[in-house]
Structure formats: structure tokens, C-alpha cells
């Protein structure tokens, strides 16, 4: 009940005209920034921080938070239309979203993403409002053992992301792991796999990796086809809004994505990116139209988009209550809080409750603003695809180049982009799926660090896997998940055999 009163107070100040304007401005800026590859919410927030310090703390925070979720949606626009994920969380959208756009379904893809983001964002904030105190305790159950198991499970599942050869999916995963291990080892600070190049000691940025793998091969292929080739992107005239069937097919993925994304988002360090990948994997697994995945299945856009926005909401829980940022962006927000004299941590709801509730209320408003702004723009964005293809694809190459420059500021970063572009092209050519390696790159630090922490803490023993209740349950689930289907299939076959025998 207190929560409702607090939230009411928050809404009262978040609904003031000025607050509303800043919320709108924030999501608009965020969308624009999200659209530009390589320029994520981080740069936008960093640039606006001095501006925001001139404002009331409430307005400043509303503006910056608006940028954050605006950019999450902005990233999915480029992922869908030009297969250029500006942020890791939207990498998954680049798979089905782009395939939809190629088939003249760009509007429906963007619409399902926008609506899914809105619904999931709102649900996650409701969760944040009412469940925070309970969920924070979850973090204390999740030690390194549990994290390791969770990451291992995620990677196992990643091998089912793509259709086609399982061996190739595994190759993709191990390529991602291989790239992710380059750089200074986090546990000891020693350089690894840098081939003597000190520039590699910072590791390989995953935005560069994702842009290179997805955007470059596609752009080069289209450009190389040259004149006279059939236009690849079919957006002529009859690109229509979501159909009734689209709504039906999107609704459950939205719901599942929201719940999944919210809970994964709570786990610090993984956040929205893992959420969107897991949602994709789940949708593909339970879909009756498995063969459509990879060819523009709307579920593969609706679910992950909902999940990554719900993940943003979930990530606010450890941020507010434990002071643990789940991503680089939330880390920056945390810094902003500090500069406003706010102290995220166990005491924030007690000491700064007015401000924190206003921020939470502004998130509801920001979500509404996001959908009001973006649904009408969907048609406009899709028009981009009508540009002559040589112009569209050569611009994409320039944009990813700027993106890489804005991350590394060096020739080295640009060359990395080009080299991974070639690797992506070759992988594509060898029919090795690209998405699993991106997920692997995101997960490898968490996988390895937590594995090593677990053994470091236990003195080399694997017993924690079985002695800790939560990890034991994960292990049991994993075993059931792997062995279960095998046994089931065997049982079915046996029954069939028996039936045949009895008939015969």
C-alpha cells in the first residue's frame, strides 16, 4: 500500500509539464542515438550529463533514463532495417527482423518491436515497483557457482539457435569464445591470445564484432551483386501494417519475453542482451513454425524485443537496491545518481524515496512517450529501404566505419572491423551461423570468471555444484533437459516397436 502512495507521489511530480517534456525529449534523443551504429546510449548520456546538471535532479534523471530506453528501441530499428545492430541487445532482432524487412514486412517488424517494447517495459516497471525488495534477495542466492551454471546452460541452448548443422552451431559458439578470450585475463591481469599486439590487450569490442558480422557481409554481398541483380529488399508499395495474424503470433512472445527478460535482467552482468537471446531461443524451441525461423518469423522479433526492454527494467533492481550496474549504460547512470548526491544501495528507498519514485514513475511515462513517438515513425523509417541499393549499402559501410571509430578511435579499431567483416563473410559462406558466436562473446567473461571463482573459492573442488541447493536444481534441470528428450525418444520408439511387434 505504501508503495502505491509513494508511486502516486512519484507520478505527481513526473506528470508536471516540464517533466513530461524531458521524458519525451529523452526518448526521442535516445531513439536517434540508438539508430546510429556504434553510438550507443553511453555517448549520448555522457554528452548530456553537463546539460542535465544545470537542471533539477528530477528532470535530469528523467531525461537520461529516457535516453536509455529510447536507445534500446532505436537499436532495433537499424537491426531490423539494415541488419546493423547498434547495441548487443538488438543483435537478435537483426536475424528475424531483417529477414522480415527483406520480405517487405519491415513495418510489421518495427511495429511488433515497438509494441512489444512498450508492453514489456511497462510490465517490467510494474515488477520493479512491487517486487524489488523480494527479488533483491535473489542476488544473494546467486553465487559464482550458480552463475557459471547459468552461463553454461545459455551456451548449450545457443547451439540450438540456428537451423542446420549442430556442429556448425558449435563452431560458431567456439569462434565467439575464442574472440572473447583475447585480451587481459580478468582474474590475473595477464595478456592472452594477443599475438604480441598490445593493442589487443583491451579485448575485442562486441559492438564492433556484431556490426562486422551482421552488417558488413550483407552490405558487401549486395554491392558485389552489382547492377542488374534483383533488388533484395522488397518494400515496394504493399508493405503493410501488422495483420491480425501478426497480432496473434506476437502476443504470446511479448508476454513470455517480458517475464523472461525481467528475471534475466535482474541478474547483474548479463542483463538485456542475454534476455533477448534467451527469448529467441525459447520462441524457436516452442514454435510450431520452426522452419520459419531464420526466414522472418515475427515471433523472433516480438519475443526478443520484449525481453530486452523488460531486461532494462529488471536491471534497475540491482542498480537501485544494490548499486550493481548490469551494463555499461547503467554504470553510467549510477555515476549520475552519485553526482546528484543519490546513493544507490540498500538505503536508497529510505533516504531518497521521493526522487527514486519520481524516476520510476517517469519510466512509465517514458514508455508511453516512446510508443507515441515511434509508431507513427515506423512508416517513415521503412521508407529508408526504398533508397537505391548502392546508396543504402555503401552508407551502411560508412556508418559502421564511424561506429568502429567512435569506439576505438584508431586505425586498429577500423581494421578489426574490416577483418571481422571478412570473417563474417567467410562464416556465412561456410554456412556457419553468426548469432551464436555473438552470444558466446557476450557470455564468455561471465562463464570463465565464475567458473574460476567457483574453483578458487572451493579450493579446486567441484562439490559446490552439487552441495548448493540452487546450483543442484540447475544441474538437475540441465540433466533432465539433455537426457530427458533422449529417453523420451527411446521410449516412444520402443512403444512403436512393441506395437509393431504385437500387430505383426
Amino acid at each position: 500500500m505504501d508503495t502505491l502512495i509513494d508511486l502516486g507521489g512519484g507520478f505527481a511530480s513526473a506528470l508536471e509539464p516540464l517533466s513530461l517534456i524531458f521524458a519525451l525529449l529523452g526518448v526521442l534523443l535516445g531513439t536517434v542515438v540508438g539508430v546510429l551504429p556504434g553510438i550507443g546510449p553511453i555517448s549520448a548520456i555522457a554528452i548530456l550529463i553537463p546539460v542535465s546538471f544545470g537542471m533539477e535532479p528530477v528532470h535530469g534523471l528523467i531525461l537520461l533514463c529516457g535516453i536509455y530506453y529510447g536507445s534500446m528501441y532505436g537499436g532495433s530499428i537499424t537491426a531490423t532495417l539494415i541488419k546493423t545492430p547498434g547495441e548487443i541487445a538488438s543483435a537478435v532482432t537483426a536475424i528475424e527482423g531483417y529477414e522480415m524487412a527483406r520480405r517487405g514486412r519491415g513495418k510489421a517488424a518495427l511495429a511488433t518491436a515497438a509494441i512489444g517494447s512498450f508492453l514489456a517495459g511497462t510490465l517490467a516497471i510494474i515488477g520493479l515497483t512491487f517486487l524489488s525488495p523480494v527479488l533483491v534477495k535473489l542476488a544473494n542466492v546467486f553465487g559464482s557457482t550458480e552463475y557459471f551454471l547459468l552461463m553454461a546452460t545459455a551456451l548449450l541452448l545457443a547451439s540450438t539457435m540456428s537451423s542446420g548443422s549442430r556442429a556448425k552451431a558449435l563452431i560458431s559458439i567456439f569462434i565467439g569464445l575464442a574472440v572473447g578470450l583475447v585480451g587481459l585475463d580478468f582474474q590475473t591481469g595477464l595478456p592472452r591470445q594477443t599475438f604480441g599486439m598490445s593493442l589487443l590487450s583491451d579485448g575485442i569490442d562486441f559492438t564492433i564484432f556484431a556490426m562486422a558480422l551482421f552488417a558488413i557481409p550483407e552490405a558487401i554481398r549486395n554491392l558485389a551483386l552489382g547492377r542488374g541483380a534483383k533488388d533484395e529488399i522488397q518494400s515496394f508499395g504493399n508493405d503493410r501494417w501488422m495483420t491480425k495474424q501478426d497480432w496473434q503470433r506476437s502476443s504470446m512472445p511479448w508476454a513470455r519475453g517480458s517475464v523472461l527478460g525481467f528475471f534475466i535482467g535482474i541478474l547483474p552482468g548479463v542483463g538485456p542482451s542475454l534476455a533477448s537471446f534467451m527469448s529467441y531461443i525459447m520462441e524457436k524451441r516452442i514454435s510450431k513454425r520452426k522452419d520459419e525461423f531464420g526466414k522472418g518469423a515475427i515471433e523472433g522479433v516480438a519475443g526478443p524485443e520484449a525481453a530486452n526492454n523488460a531486461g532494462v527494467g529488471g536491471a534497475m533492481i540491482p542498480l537501485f537496491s544494490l548499486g550493481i550496474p548490469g551494463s555499461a549504460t547503467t554504470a553510467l547512470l549510477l555515476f549520475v545518481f552519485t553526482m546528484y548526491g543519490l546513493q544507490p544501495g540498500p538505503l536508497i528507498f529510505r533516504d531518497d524515496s521521493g526522487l527514486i519514485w519520481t524516476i520510476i514513475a517517469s519510466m512509465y511515462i517514458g514508455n508511453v512517450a516512446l510508443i507515441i513517438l515511434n509508431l507513427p515513425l515506423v512508416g517513415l523509417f521503412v521508407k529508408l529501404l526504398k533508397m537505391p541499393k548502392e546508396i543504402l549499402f555503401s552508407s551502411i559501410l560508412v556508418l559502421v566505419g564511424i561506429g568502429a571509430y567512435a569506439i576505438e578511435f584508431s586505425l586498429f579499431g577500423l581494421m578489426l572491423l574490416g577483418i571481422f567483416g571478412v570473417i563474417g563473410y567467410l562464416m556465412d559462406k561456410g554456412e556457419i551461423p553468426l548469432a551464436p558466436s555473438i552470444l558466446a562473446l557476450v557470455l564468455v567473461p561471465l562463464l570463465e570468471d565464475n567458473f574460476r571463482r567457483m574453483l578458487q573459492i572451493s579450493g579446486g573442488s567441484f562439490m559446490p555444484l552439487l552441495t548448493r541447493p540452487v546450483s543442484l536444481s540447475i544441474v538437475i534441470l540441465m540433466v533432465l533437459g539433455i537426457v530427458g528428450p533422449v529417453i523420451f525418444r527411446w521410449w516412444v520408439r520402443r512403444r512403436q516397436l512393441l506395437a509393431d511387434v504385437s500387430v505383426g
Partner: protein
Amino acid sequence: MKTLSPARRGDVITGIAVTLVGTVYYIATFWIQETRNIITPATFPAIVGVALIVLGLFLAGQALYRSRKLAEVAPGGAAPAGGGIDGTTSACVNAEHGATSVDDASADPASGDERTGAVIDAPEEPKSKQVVLQFALFFVYLGILIPVGFLLSTAAFLMTMTSIYAPHRWVRNLIFSVLFSVVIYIAFVYGLAVYLPVGILG
């Protein structure tokens, strides 16, 4: 070996390439300093290297084995079913795009009406020479971006790319190349305070 279908041959090459990458990666782990930790910094990279070697060999071996089996069954070697035991889509060089036209019609019948005339033809695979050329141009662009500066190199790159494709529309290409470079430059430098290289104009 004559009976190797293009997809199978592709798998053999892919497998060998992956094995080579894995080998190099594994050898690189020898340079990682040993520590007294239980799991050393080299453990994971070594596992990854070995896994790549094994998977590469498996892929190549599988392709060879299957094509032999196929050759026994159908001496013509035409790979009729593509052997899709593991789901590898048949002999189409680019499964993802190749399968498009076929699946599209069946995949989403209800919305089929919306896309009249929007059936995607199986895209031609670009000629390797063209791909190499495009990549080469892209690398040149990446290479000169910093020394020459964003504005000049980008305008030149865009002009080149668009002119290869549509040489007769050089006026449009020129206007686009210059305008795009300038607009992007202004947006990034003044709007986002991301300094793009000025190069020789500086």
C-alpha cells in the same frame, strides 16, 4: 572425391579452415604465462582451441563420410536429399538465401496476399572477384579514413561505390556522396561531440 557435391566440398573446406584456426589459437596459448591458480589463464583458451580443432575435423570428416555413403547409394552422386540428417540444407550454396523463395510461399500463407509481387528470387551469389573488390575498397577506405580525414575519404569512397554500381548517374552519386559526408560529419562532431578525423583538411 569426384562425387563431392558443392555443399559437401564446402563443408570439407570449412572444416579444414576451422581446424587451422583452432591450431593457431591453441599454439598461441603457449605464450600465456603460467600461474599458480587452479585454473590458469591458459585453460579456457586451450579448451577453445582444441574444441575448434575437433569440430573442424568432425565437420570435414562428416562431409567426406556422407558423400561416400551417398555415392554408394546413388552412384550418380547427385545428392538428391542433401542427406539432411543433421538438417544441413542441401546443395544450395547459400542455404539461408537459397531456401527463401521456396519457403516463403509456404511459410506464411495467410500474409501471402500482402506481398504480391514481393516474392524474393533466389539471389545470385556474387562473383568472388566482385566480393574481393568490394572488400578491398572497404579496406582502403578504412585505411585512409584517419590520415586523409573523414570528409574526403568518405566522399571518395561513396562516390566510388555508387559509381561502380550506377556509373551513368554520376551527378546524383556526387551530390549524395558529398552531402552525406558533410551531414554526418556535422551531426557527429557538433551534435555528438564525437570527433571524426580531420586528416589533411585539418
